[in-house]
């Protein structure tokens, strides 16, 4: 508000002499101009902004006025006022930029409001300390962000506090360890209320634990697992579940799978960097038959040939799975051959990753048969396996046929360089072929940088 604003009304109130006086004064003031005088509507808007918390007026305004209010509202207003009133726009961008340095809105569907609310909720959950923080703090957020939160990327879950006990008496530690539960935040209270949630990324770990490192900080308890499983079951909109680096063993895996069976919307499952063994793999095989999963990531687990056989068996009957990642397991030849046989009767899988699985020639021979027969498989990764000369030759022979493979990784497989180069040539040829087809499919010129590695 400028200092000149009160002048015109005063002049209006007084008589013509006063007007003349005012005019004289105005003429003497070189800075005065009519543009400085704010219009009544601006004043009204400013007052609306000033009393927004007590009397929020937003919906009745015109788009221009809304923009003005979004520009000038304070970002520190409580969410209860703003969350459901102000739509996505400048205000939320200001909120985000005030709170965080890095704001990549493209990861959030280009919605600043969604970004703000999701990150706000993540922050609350990540700092949630069982038995200390009131669950209400989380639940209070629910009505504001229920319709906007689509993804929760939780990078840490704090265990309950016990340092006081530790420092209190060493004797009671053991008892405490047994008695006091190490359960983390219970997702049961939250997931069924977030009606728009589609992705859930969970890591049971503590970031920046420093010298307080304990293995227990990096694993989920049985009760955590149960509550999480039930919460996942209650969340009907979930499409992607990513639960990695959380020490999931066979038992916990079975528990989770048991509750994820027949989930209506789940499309992608990521259990990478866990400790799932053959029994867990068998459970996942069962899950494959009773769900509509499209992507399954089991990399860096403990699956060996029995588990691989179970998965292969499920794969032979499955018609939804598009991508399977079994990197850094120990399938060995038996598992690899089982998978190869399963793929002969499967026409949906497109991507298969068998890197670092200690498979050798026989698996390569089995897969080369698949390459010849199967026309849907597009990418195959056999890196870090000792395939040997025979495997390489079998693959070369298979690739000499017309195949649909556009990606084939044979690095560190002890295969002859010439074979690898030949296979690469074939793969590149297929790639260019595919690109041409794509270009033909959609007439507009294809962006050359679209196929990313």
């Amino acid at each position, binding site marked *: 508000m400028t200092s000149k604003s009160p002048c015109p009304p005063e002049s209006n109130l007084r008589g013509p002499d006063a007007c003349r006086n005012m005019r004289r004064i105005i003429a003497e003031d070189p800075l005065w101009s009519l543009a400085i005088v704010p219009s009544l509507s601006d004043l009204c808007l400013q007052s609306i902004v000033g009393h927004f918390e007590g009397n929020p007026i937003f919906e009745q305004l015109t788009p221009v006025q809304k923009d003005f209010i979004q520009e000038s509202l304070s970002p520190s207003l409580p969410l209860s006022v703003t969350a459901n009133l102000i739509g996505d726009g400048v205000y939320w961008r200001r909120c985000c930029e005030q709170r965080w340095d890095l704001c990549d809105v493209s990861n959030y569907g280009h919605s600043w409001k969604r970004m703000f609310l999701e990150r706000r909720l993540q922050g609350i959950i990540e700092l949630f300390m069982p038995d200390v923080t009131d669950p209400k703090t989380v639940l209070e957020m629910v009505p504001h962000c229920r319709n906007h939160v689509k993804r929760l990327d939780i990078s840490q879950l704090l265990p309950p506090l016990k340092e006081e006990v530790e420092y209190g008496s060493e004797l009671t530690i053991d008892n405490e360890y047994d008695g006091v539960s190490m359960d983390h935040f219970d997702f049961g209270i939250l997931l069924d209320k977030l009606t728009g949630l589609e992705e859930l990324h969970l890591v049971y770990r503590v970031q920046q634990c420093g010298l307080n490192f304990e293995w227990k900080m990096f694993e989920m308890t049985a009760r955590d697992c149960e509550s999480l499983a039930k919460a996942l079951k209650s969340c009907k909109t979930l499409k992607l579940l990513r639960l990695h680096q959380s020490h999931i063993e066979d038992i916990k895996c079975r528990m989770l799978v048991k509750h994820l069976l027949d989930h209506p919307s789940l499309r992608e499952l990521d259990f990478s960097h866990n400790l799932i063994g053959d029994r867990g793999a068998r459970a996942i095989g069962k899950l494959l038959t009773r769900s509509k999963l499209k992507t399954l990531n089991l990399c860096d687990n403990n699956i060996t040939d029995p588990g691989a056989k179970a998965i292969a068996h499920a794969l032979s009957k499955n018609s939804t799975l598009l991508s399977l990642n079994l990197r850094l397991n120990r399938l060995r030849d038996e598992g690899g051959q089982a998978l190869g046989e399963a793929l002969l009767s499967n026409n949906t899988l497109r991507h298969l990753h068998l890197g*670092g699985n*200690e498979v050798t020639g026989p698996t390569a021979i089995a897969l080369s048969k698949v390459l010849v027969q199967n026309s849907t498989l597009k990418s195959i990764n056999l*890196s*870090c396996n000792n395939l040997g000369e025979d495997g390489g030759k079998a693959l070369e022979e298979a690739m000499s046929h017309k195949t649909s493979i556009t990606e084939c990784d044979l690095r*560190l497989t002890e295969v002859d360089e010439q074979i690898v180069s030949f296979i690469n040539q074939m793969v590149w040829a297929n790639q260019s072929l595919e*690109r041409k087809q794509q270009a033909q499919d959609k007439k507009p010129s*294809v962006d050359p940088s679209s*196929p990313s590695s």
Partner: protein
Amino acid sequence: MGGEQEEVPHRISSLQRYLTTPVTNIQTAADARESMRRKELEQARKVRLEWLENDVRSSQEKFEEITKGWSMAKDKVTPRELQEALSGQQQLCALLVENKKKLINDLQQELKVGDDRYVKDLRKQVEELDLMMERMEDQVKTLTKAYREELAQLERVYQQENKVLLITDKKERHQLLKKLWDEELERLAQRKKKVEEYEAKIHSLMLETIDKQSVIKTEETSNFQVLEREQQQMQGTNMIMRLKQIKERDDVETHKFNLANMKSRIISLQAEKKNLVTNYMSQVKQFRTKSRHLSKDHKRNIQQYERIQKTKKHFAVADARRFDEMWLTLEEEVRQLVERALVIDQRICERHLGLAWERPALPSSPFQPKKPARTPDPQPVSQLIHTEQSSQCSQGTTTDASGGPGSQAEGVDADACGEQTAAQSESDAWESEEARLSTEMKVMELLCDETGFLMEDQLLKMLAPLEKQGPTSVKLGSLLSSLGVEEEDLPKLADFLLTYQQQQTKVSSAAERVSIRTSTFDQAAAVETNSDLIHPNHVLPALKSFLKQHMKSRESSGPQQSSVPPTEARDSSTDGAYWERMGNVIPEEKVKLWEAARNLLEQHLEVLQEISELVPETDRLEQQNAELRMLLQQSLNQ
């Protein structure tokens, strides 16, 4: 160019491939190492497990040995032995412990090695990560560089192309422009030349055309005026012609119309004529029969008439006689009445009024009773009747003869004429008769000729074929009938005409005094010699005057002829006076006097009447009085 464009994506994709491989190589290498590490770990674990198992087995053996030793030691009784056994056990335990310690040490060593390795791995991973990041950055850099280069190249290529095109275009444009300009300049020059030429031409043409135009204009105007005049003339003539035509047409139409009318009228008239002829024929027949009947009726009527005349005469005589008688009786009565009135008057005057009365003179009666010998002579009457009858007869015959052949009519007419003359010749001299007849005839002829217009056309037509003598008589008959002049008046008419002629010719008044007949005869004779009876022009006015006179005389003579008047006409005027005087014997003053006397008498009468009425009452009262007196006397007496 096209190949280059195709090569670009290929180059970039290969670049991507080659650039990503080093990065992914690190990952795969890490994977491989990881798998190797796992393998090693597994093997180490196996070795360790074996080791541990061996150790467990050996330690178990030792432990068993120890326990055996302990059991053996229980058997030992001697402390020495016990000591020995204890020491042996101690040694064994120490060995075991040593073994265990060694194992622990080994394990710890291994752990340390593992830790070191972990740290080393971590470091290595950090290094690898750094390397990866570095490579990625490099990759990004190279890629961006490549893209930039690509872009720059493309831009350059396009710019070059553009430049080349621009230059060529510009050149072309310049050339074309130059050409164009040159052409334009040439054209401009040409145009300028042409313009000048044209201007000159136009100027000359303008002058020429103006001259021509003025000439033409004047010519045109003159021509136009001539034409206009002609046209006006033409219009006038045309107008006249048209009017003439219209007139002719009108005439023709009217003529046509008249002609048609006439024709139709002629036709209708002819038809009418035919009809009329037939009608006439039939009517002639009817008339013949009718005339026959009528003549019969006429005779009968004449006889009847005679009879009536006789009775009339008789009645007239009787009436006269009665009249006289009546007159006498009436006069007697009146005289008596007058006498009486006079007596009454005398009495009134004398008695009531006490006036002296003198008798007024009575008028003498104008009527003297005549001698009854006075009788009218019947001869002239009968003669008259006879002449009338004869004339009527002759008339009937003439009318009869007119329908028949002319010769017969002539004969009949001659007869009639003869008869007529015979009838009238009674009082006239016979000698002058013939001359008079001839003049009469001539006068008649003249009259007929002059007054032919009075006759009906049809009659004239019908008479046309007759001979000269015939028509005059017939004409005369019809003329006289139409004029209402009787046949008997004919000579009178002739005479009149002759006298009229004389009057006109201013005959001396002396001649007038002479009896009309004689003079006329003399004059007629004189006139005859002159063969100028009457001027034809004077015939009509003469006839008119005659008719006037004749009608007057007729009117006056009509009643004389028809009624038989008393031989001596009574003077009725004196009768009226007489009767008047008789009526007014008592004058008006006397009547008034009488009236007054009467009134007085009436009053007197009334008084008298009242008196008379009172008389009985007085009588009664007297009687009553007498009775009462009687009664009184009686009562007195009694």
